[in-house]
C-alpha cells in the first residue's frame, strides 16, 4: 500500500536517478521542475478534454439519452474529433475589432488556469510547488481571470459581447468577496496559507467540513467557486441562447477552444481546491492518497455537472442579490463562529457555533424573502352594472 500511495513520487525519483547518471548536478534542478511541469502540462488539457466528454454524457443521461457514443467505443475519441474540428476551422476576426486584444484574451486566459495546478496537492508529497502562500496564490490568480474576460468582450467590438463581458465582470468580482471570506476560517484553524499544511491539519477523519463553520464555509466556497467559473446556474456571461454566446461570440476555431479549455480547467482546479481546503485533500483511510484526492475532486465535478443538468440560469439581479445579500453576510457570520469555535472548548464550541449559524440563517432567509405584491383592487374601473 505504501508503494501504491507513493507511486508517482517513486517514478519521479527513479527518473531523476536515471538521468543523474549522465547529466551535471546543476541541471538536475531544472529536470525536476521540468518533470513536474511537464506532467501538469500534459495532465491539464487531457483532463479538460475528457471532462467535456464526461459532461456531455452525464447531462445526456439526465436528459434520458445517451451522450456521444458513436465516435470511439464509449465516445472516447469524441474530444479528439472536437479538437480536430476546432483546429481546422477558419479564424474569423471582425473587421474593426481591436486585433491585439482579440488575439491576446484567449491566450492569456488559459495561463491562470494552468498556474493553479501547481499548488494543488495531488497526494502525499505530490505537489508541484510547495508555496508557503499557496492559497493566496490561488485566490489572486482566480481574480485575474476576470480582466481577460473583459478584454475578450471589449476586443470583439460587439455590443452584446460587451454586455456579456460587463455582466461577467460584475458577477466575478462580487463573488470573489464571499469566496475569500469563506476560506479565512480554514486559515485561522490551520494557521498557514500553504495547501500542504492545510491538508495535513485535517489528518484522520477530522476534515474541516465536519465542523459547524466547515459546513457553511464549504457551501459558500463551493457556490462561489461555481460562480467564478461561470457555470450554470451562474453562466450568464456565456449565456448560451441568451446573448448568443456572451463574451466569446466573435471567437471561432482554436480561440474558442482556448476559452472552453480555460473554463474546464478552472472547473477542475476549483473542485480540487475546495476538496483540498474543506474536504481533507488527499486524507482518507486505506486507499492511496491520490485516489482519495481524485475521488473527492470528481465528486465535486459531478455535483457541478448535476447543477448544469438541473437548474435554470439565474437572472442578473438575482445573481448579484444572492452574492451581496445572502452569501456575504453568511460568510461574515461564518468567520465569527469560526473564531468562537477555536476559542471555546468542546462540546460548547460546537453548540454555540451551530446556534449562532442557525440564527443567522433564519435571519438571512427572512431578510431575503421574495416580495410578492398584494393583489390590486380596482376602483372606478367598471361602470356600475
Amino acid at each position, binding site marked *: 500500500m505504501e508503494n501504491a500511495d507513493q507511486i508517482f513520487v517513486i517514478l519521479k525519483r527513479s527518473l531523476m536517478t536515471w538521468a543523474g547518471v549522465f547529466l551535471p548536478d546543476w541541471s538536475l534542478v531544472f529536470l525536476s521542475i521540468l518533470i513536474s511541469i511537464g506532467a501538469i502540462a500534459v495532465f491539464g488539457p487531457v483532463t479538460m478534454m475528457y471532462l467535456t466528454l464526461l459532461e456531455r454524457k452525464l447531462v445526456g443521461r439526465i436528459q434520458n439519452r445517451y451522450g456521444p457514443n458513436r465516435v470511439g467505443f464509449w465516445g472516447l475519441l469524441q474530444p479528439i474529433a472536437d479538437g480536430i474540428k476546432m483546429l481546422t476551422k477558419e479564424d474569423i476576426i471582425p473587421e474593426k475589432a481591436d486585433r491585439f486584444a482579440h488575439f491576446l484574451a484567449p491566450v492569456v486566459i488559459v495561463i491562470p488556469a494552468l498556474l493553479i495546478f501547481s499548488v494543488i496537492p495531488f497526494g502525499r508529497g505530490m505537489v508541484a510547488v510547495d508555496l508557503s502562500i499557496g492559497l493566496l496564490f490561488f485566490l489572486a490568480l482566480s481574480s485575474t481571470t476576470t480582466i481577460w474576460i473583459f478584454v475578450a468582450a471589449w476586443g470583439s467590438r460587439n455590443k452584446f459581447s460587451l454586455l456579456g463581458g460587463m455582466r461577467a465582470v460584475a458577477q466575478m468580482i462580487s463573488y470573489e468577496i464571499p469566496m475569500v471570506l469563506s476560506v479565512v476560517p480554514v486559515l485561522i484553524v490551520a494557521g498557514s496559507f500553504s495547501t500542504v499544511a492545510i491538508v495535513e491539519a485535517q489528518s484522520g477523519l477530522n476534515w474541516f467540513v465536519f465542523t459547524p463553520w466547515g459546513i457553511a464555509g464549504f457551501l459558500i466556497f463551493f457556490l462561489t467557486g461555481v460562480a467564478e467559473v461561470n457555470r450554470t446556474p451562474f453562466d450568464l456571461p456565456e449565456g448560451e441562447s441568451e446573448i448568443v454566446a456572451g463574451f466569446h461570440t466573435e471567437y471561432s476555431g482554436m480561440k474558442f477552444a482556448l476559452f472552453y479549455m480555460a473554463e474546464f480547467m478552472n472547473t477542475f482546479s476549483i473542485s480540487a481546491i475546495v476538496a483540498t481546503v474543506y474536504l481533507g485533500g488527499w486524507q482518507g483511510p486505506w486507499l492511496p492518497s491520490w485516489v482519495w484526492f481524485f475521488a473527492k475532486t470528481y465528486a465535486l465535478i459531478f455535483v457541478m455537472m*448535476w447543477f448544469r443538468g438541473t*437548474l435554470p440560469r439565474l437572472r442578473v439581479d438575482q445573481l448579484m442579490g444572492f452574492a451581496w445579500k445572502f452569501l456575504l453576510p453568511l460568510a461574515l457570520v461564518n468567520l465569527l463562529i469560526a473564531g468562537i469555535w477555536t476559542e471555546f472548548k468542546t462540546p460548547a464550541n460546537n453548540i454555540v457555533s451551530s446556534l449562532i449559524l442557525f440564527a443567522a440563517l433564519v435571519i438571512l432567509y427572512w431578510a431575503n424573502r421574495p416580495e410578492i405584491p398584494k393583489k390590486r383592487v380596482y376602483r372606478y374601473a367598471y361602470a356600475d352594472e
Partner: protein
Amino acid sequence: MIFGLGVLKGMMVTLKNFVLSYFTKERLTTVQYPEERIPEKERFRNFPFLIYDEKPEDLRCVSCDICAKECPPKCITIVRDSDEQGKPLKRPKVFDIDFSICMNCGICEEVCPFDAIFMDHEFELAEYGRFEDLNYHKDDLLKSNEYFAKIRPQDAARIDAKLREKAKLKETEIRGHNT
C-alpha cells in the same frame, strides 16, 4: 428551508433520472438507429408496390389506368399490353412510378378496384441519381402476396377473404350455368 427546498427537490428528480437510466428502458428511450430499429406499424404508409398472387406473371393489375388518372402529381405511367394480333390484354406492359415525384398519399391504393396496388413500408431507398435510379419499373414494383401478408396482416387477411368469396361465388355461378 423553504427557500432552498425547491432546488434540492429538483436535483433529486434529475438524480433519479440519471441513476434509473442505467436500469430501466423508459428513462433511456434512445433507439440506436442503424443497429436497432423501432418495430414497424401496420398502417405506416410509404411508396406503392404491385401485388402478384403465385408467380410474378399473375399480377392482379389489369392496367385499367384508374390509379394513373387519380394520382395527384401524376407519377404513374401505364401502357397496356397487347398480344401478337394487336388485341389488348388485361395486363400492363409498362408500369412506371417515379418515386421522386410520388408523395405517398395512398390514393392509388384507395381507388384500385382490383386490390392490385398497395403502400409499402420501405423507407431506406436513398439513391444517387434522381432520374436513373428513382424511376421504378414494373419488375421493381412487383412483390408477392406473402410479403403483403407479412407487413400488413390484417389488410391481407381481409383482402384474401374477399377474393376467396368472389372466387367461390364465381364457381357457384359457373356451376349454376352448367346445370
